[in-house]
């Protein structure tokens, strides 16, 4: 029988759970745990400079590897600083466990120093939260936390650990549970066979079908099955911002992504389709535009692990609750076995129509002889990294440009805060990726607004040698805010101008990194090449781009999917 303190049990449980890295920041209520961490070397701890960054780092790690991320912070401000990160992970269904110190159970409710009701504060933004009520429970609570975080529709789980649960001199028997079973939590393991059959029949009978795939395909590790099914059918596919990489962007059946800043052809194809097969997406308002005008002629098959995502905003004709990989696999088998084949003539004329839409816009943008266009920067990066980099982004125009012009052929490589839209996400997320992918190129595409929200992490990068490349598309304004002000507020740029920007080059150097400024168009490609050649250095690339550029296409507010601005002057 092995006797361990609560703190040792916690660390031991993490080891037994197979956790490699935790990201965190120590403090009073977590000190017993930090001491236990010190006395072992299996679980590695990364010390960030702000707790929010620890969560984004764990998040970036989770998105790139598909494994749950782990965060450790102290009570009170340590815990509340994680909230934005947790909400970010919650909105994008990212598996994560956040371990929070808490004041001793005897002090809870007394407004003790650094006491916050973290269970209450986090409740609306977690998949679940748990508090430890006896040290002996710790292994089971930890196992439960990871089980809930990583099964079904994944999400963040908070574990609140009062300090007296980790007291060093109180030891208990350590038993790590082999299996966790919860009577009230049983995620679906397969879809309903009858519904799947119905869906396949509808797919094969469709004249203007489209596949609409989302982040669920990446989270469900179902890119292989999706690609197989789509190629087998020969139908067009579009995906959401979160689904980028779930199907190769360079494939001719891929129409790009859809929604507010999606491609013209994908929005047009959605609007005119007669059948939408939605796989692991959730008809978010940034996709559908006005729901009452959404795809009037389409019947909808919706596959999702979360029943609450089905018919939430758009009613599904055929709902299928189940893991996307298992459901797609069954669909592939049924398509193979079916005597019915897709209507070749109808599909050919559907493609003819789509190709016309494709040729009509083709993601064109105006270039200028001397000003660097943000789109050009992304295209250059995509070329120079052969489309194989891991790209994280912050939130705003740069995020849309990165998603539009970097072509991802693989899943897990486009990492952004799609649901919550968290500025400050990009750099720490990139660090989480780089830590576990040291040989891969990791780019953080950001703007001068977003990067300043977690700029302090340049220090962490120095400590742990994380040579990410920060691509700062500097337009000296909060670009997306400014774009909306241009379009909806007669260009009254209320608080969207970034005055007094720091000298990013000196700033990067102050943190021990390299800073490179690019402000001449003719230097763009050569300087980017030099930057990418500095394999073992973090390089902050401050690129002065067109200050007046807008992101297009852009759906017209309250319109249907086909109502778009294609440039500052063209509206369809």
């Amino acid at each position, binding site marked *: 029988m092995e006797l361990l303190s609560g703190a040792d049990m916690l660390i031991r449980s993490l080891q037994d759970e197979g956790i490699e890295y935790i990201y965190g920041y120590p403090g009073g209520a977590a000190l017993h745990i930090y001491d236990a961490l010190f006395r072992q070397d299996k679980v590695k701890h990364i010390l960030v400079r702000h707790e929010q960054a620890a969560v984004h780092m764990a998040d970036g790690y989770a998105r790139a590897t598909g494994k749950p991320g782990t965060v450790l912070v102290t009570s009170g401000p340590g815990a509340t600083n994680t909230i934005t990160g947790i909400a970010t992970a919650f909105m994008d269904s990212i598996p994560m466990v956040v371990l929070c110190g808490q004041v001793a159970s005897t002090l809870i409710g007394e407004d003790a120093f650094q006491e916050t009701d973290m*269970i209450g504060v986090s*409740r*609306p933004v977690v998949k*679940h939260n748990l*508090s430890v009520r006896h040290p002996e429970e710790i292994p089971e609570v930890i196992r439960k936390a990871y089980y*809930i975080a990583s099964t079904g529709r994944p999400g963040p789980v908070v574990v609140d650990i009062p300090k007296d649960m980790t007291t060093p001199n109180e030891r208990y028997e350590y038993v790590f549970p082999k299996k966790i079973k919860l009577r*009230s939590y049983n995620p679906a393991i397969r879809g309903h066979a009858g519904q799947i059959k119905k869906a396949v029949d509808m797919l094969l009978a469709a004249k203007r079908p489209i596949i609409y795939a989302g982040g669920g395909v990446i989270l469900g590790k179902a890119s292989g099955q999706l690609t197989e099914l789509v190629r087998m059918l020969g139908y067009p596919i579009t995906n959401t911002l979160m689904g980028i990489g779930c199907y190769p962007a360079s494939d001719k059946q891929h129409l790009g992504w859809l929604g507010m800043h999606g491609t013209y052809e994908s929005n047009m194809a959605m609007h005119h389709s007669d059948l939408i097969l939605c796989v692991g997406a959730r008809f978010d308002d940034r996709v559908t535009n006005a729901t009452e005008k959404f795809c009037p002629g389409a019947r909808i098959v919706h596959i999702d692990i979360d029943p*609450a995502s089905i*018919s939430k905003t758009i009613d599904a004709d055929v709902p299928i609750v189940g893991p996307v990989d298992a459901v797609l696999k069954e669909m592939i088998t049924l398509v193979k076995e079916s005597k019915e084949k897709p209507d070749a003539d109808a599909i050919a004329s559907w493609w003819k129509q789509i190709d016309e839409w494709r040729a009509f816009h083709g993601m064109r943008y105006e270039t200028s002889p001397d000003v660097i266009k943000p789109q050009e920067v992304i295209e250059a990066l995509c070329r120079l990294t052969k489309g194989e980099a891991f790209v994280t982004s912050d939130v705003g125009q740069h995020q849309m440009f990165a998603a539009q012009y970097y072509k991802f052929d693989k899943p897990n490589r486009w990492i952004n805060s799609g649901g919550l839209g968290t500025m400050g996400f990009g750099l720490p997320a990139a660090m989480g990726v780089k830590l576990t992918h040291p040989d891969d190129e990791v780019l953080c595409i950001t703007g001068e607004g977003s990067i300043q929200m977690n700029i302090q992490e340049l220090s962490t990068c120095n400590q742990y040698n994380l040579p990410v490349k920060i691509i700062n598309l500097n337009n000296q304004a909060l670009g997306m805010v400014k774009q909306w002000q241009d379009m909806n507020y007669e260009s009254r740029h209320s608080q969207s101008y970034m005055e007094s920007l720091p000298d990013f080059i000196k700033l990067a150097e102050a943190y021990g990194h390299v800073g490179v400024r690019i402000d001449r168009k003719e230097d763009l490609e050569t300087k980017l090449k030099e930057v990418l050649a500095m394999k073992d250095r973090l390089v902050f690339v401050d690129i002065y781009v067109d200050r007046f550029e807008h992101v297009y296409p852009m759906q017209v507010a309250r319109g249907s999917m086909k109502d778009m601005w294609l440039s500052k002057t063209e509206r369809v």
Partner: protein
Amino acid sequence: MRRIISVLLENEPGALSRVVGLFSQRNYNIETLTVAPTEDETLSRLTVTTTGSDKVIEQITKQLNKLIEVVKLVDLTEGSHIERELMLVKLKATGSQRAEIKRTVDIFRGQIVDVTSSVYTVQLAGDSDKLDGFIQAVGTSGVLEVVRTGVSGIARGEKVLSL
């Protein structure tokens, strides 16, 4: 439309706050809420009455089911069911009012459970409409205090909500 949703919930600290939080977080209505442990002490039974379109009610039941601590739930209004609410009401009762109130209580099959020289305390059980009807019948001017438990409900016939 008014619905009565009955939920079996893990009897854990914080479980109730998740249910209540869900309603406010997603902008759903709660009209009444009752909760108490069941014969199985690991489970609580919670009854919530709410209003909303069919789409909203579908979301409410799905979102409730998503809560890790919700074991099972049923929308009682989907089938025939019995609903009861208990009300305690203090009424001004002096002079000729005393006999009149006593008669009204009898008609509504209530009971006078406490008496002073000027006040009757009445206990009344029934569906919510009946309790409203009683208040109307005695007239609001004589009502000093009203306490209602909120609705509890159970399905008619063989159907049971259990593990």
